[in-house]
């Protein structure tokens, strides 16, 4: 936890017309750390992720990458820095096989034609190091289960050798077993020293894998909690604002003041 944050956002603000989507938001992620980003619908999670991924840059605020200011204005800029984003609605092509999807947009060529053998070998290697089990890397993604598709999508983000992986609702619509597989994979990313931002509505998942929880409420920071020392109820009340009174506001101020 002592290392420089891979990503540090300071005072990020974003407006959409008359709506102030984000106000003065801070966020830090260190290598080998899983930070869960939680909040109710409309709290600004997606907006914040889009700002990091370069899809919708912030209006104001500092973007520090490994301690140095960086400019992220297009998705390409974020990818250059080493940010990989796995979107909720799975960016996979159903008609292509697993290898085709993993290497889509970064195909390996050999004398001008696709090097299928090398891509297949590397795909197997990658899936093996991440302990992902897929029946075959040569079957169309359409015939995989939801959890397998999600793991393929996450594995795909690993090919660019990222430093920060953003997972947007990776376990939504997954079964018990599949959710466990994805959570295992998240832990493996952490073991490999990657920083992970995990967006989730599922408190059980958050408690299971996250090191810290950053809560957004109505576009503002509403506390950052260490998962180990925080009860689920505390996080939920921070999300919903159910205990939004002078006392909690005071503790929230203290929590914010500490970081």
């Amino acid at each position, binding site marked *: 936890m002592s290392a420089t944050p891979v990503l540090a956002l300071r005072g990020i603000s974003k407006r959409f017309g008359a709506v102030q989507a984000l106000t003065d938001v801070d966020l830090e992620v260190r290598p080998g750390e899983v930070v869960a980003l939680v909040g109710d619908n409309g709290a600004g999670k997606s907006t914040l992720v889009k700002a990091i991924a370069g899809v919708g840059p912030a209006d104001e605020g500092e973007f520090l990458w490994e301690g140095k200011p960086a400019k992220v204005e297009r998705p390409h800029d974020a990818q250059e820095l080493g940010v990989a984003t796995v979107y909720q609605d799975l960016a996979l092509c159903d*008609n292509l096989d697993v290898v085709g999807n993993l290497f889509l947009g970064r195909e390996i060529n050999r004398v001008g034609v696709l090097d299928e053998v090398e891509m297949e070998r590397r795909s197997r290697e990658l899936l093996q190091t991440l302990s992902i089990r897929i029946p075959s890397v040569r079957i169309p993604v359409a015939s995989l289960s939801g959890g397998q598709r999600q793991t393929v999508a996450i594995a795909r983000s690993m090919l660019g050798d990222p430093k920060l992986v953003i997972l947007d609702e990776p376990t939504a619509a997954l079964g018990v077993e599949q959710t466990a597989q994805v959570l295992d994979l998240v832990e493996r990313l952490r073991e490999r020293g990657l920083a992970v931002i995990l967006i989730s509505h599922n408190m059980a998942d958050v408690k299971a894998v996250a090191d810290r929880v950053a809560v957004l409420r109505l576009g503002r920071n509403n506390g950052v909690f260490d998962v180990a020392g925080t009860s689920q109820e505390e996080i939920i009340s921070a999300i919903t604002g159910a205990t939004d009174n002078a006392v909690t506001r005071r503790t929230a101020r203290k929590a914010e003041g500490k970081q």
Partner: protein
Amino acid sequence: MSTELSRSPEDGGSTPAAETATAAPAAGAVTAVDPRLLVREQGFKGYLTEFVRRMRSGELGSVPVVVGLIVIWAIFQSLDSAFLSAQNLSNLSVYIVGTGLISVGIVFVLLLGEIDLSVGSVSGLAGAVFAVLAVNNGMAEWLALLLALATGAAAGAVHGFFFARIGVPAFVVTLAGLLAWNGLMLQVLDSTGTINLDDEGLVATLTSHYFSDVAAAYGLAAVAVLVFGGAQLLDARRRQAAGVPFRPLAEIALRTGVLAVFAFAAAYTLNQYRGLPLALLVFLAVLVLFDLLLRRTGYGRKVFALGGSTEAARRAGINVAAIRISVFTLAGTMAAFGGLMIASRISAANQGAGSGNLLMEAIAAAVIGGTSLFGGRGNVWSALLGMLVIGSIANGLALLGSPAHLQYMITGGVLLAAVVIDSVSRRTQKSAGRT
């Protein structure tokens, strides 16, 4: 072989249970092979079960069109014994080239999940441009040919631009093209009407030249078989060296053998008449080239990706607009090429070129051949297979002296059948795909 066939049904019932029973304990010890993967058994029976499974799950591929072609040929041969004569088949092979080339471009557009309705008009325009430049203005034929192809490419690029950059539906853009390019063709031909091509010229030769030496057709067949078999062997060896699954030798031998039978039968038939037609050679070369482009290059992979999910392709960093424009440009170019081939066959460019059912035939050929209208599934060989079906029907009915209206109705029925098969197999794949 027959014992294998007769035994398979009863075996089919017992194997799954036996497999799961043995697979369960094995999975704990060795994690190399996923127990969920249905590994194909060795030998002929493995082929059969694999084949049946593919059919059931809707991966029909080229099977319906091959079966349809056999049925059509059998029917016409029984009605008129001249149908399967060397002369008729040789003529058929030249007849299908013009529309077949147009259909190759259509395959690419269909893979994107789009449609191009302008290819008929563009083909007519290309023929007219060529004739006016080469015959009326005395330009060198090769230069006129290149300019005609460039005209097609430009027309396609215009469609692509309006579709990809402005966001107008391809259906509407190319419908406008259908009218506009036909009008332009009439204007180009304005003063002359019909222009006859030089019979000895480059373009006329395209469909009139035959390599009468028997060595040509046999040589081509031999080269095809050797290259195919050699490539498969090399690929298998590389895969083995890299430690990824590879095709067993027996399977390679079987595939190469099947190709050899077809290639040499075709070569033999062609040699019975006038030898290997130049037009067919050009068509086959185009098919091989575009097949490689589609299946073996990054460009082809991107075309398939766009047909599968545009959004996924965009997020993978693929320049969606550039690919779309290039595909429509390619369709326009191939339409122009096909138009020149058709002009070559009738030795003239006239005001009726590119109209009638040419457009429908080109699209129908791609769909009948097994390329999906829904995008993302198909291959360029469907242009050949589909045109063989359509050409056979036209040719067979002409032999029987049937009127044109019967041909339209039958071709329409075949197209409907092909689209029904496409839709049903897509539905079956969806239900069988996600387990």
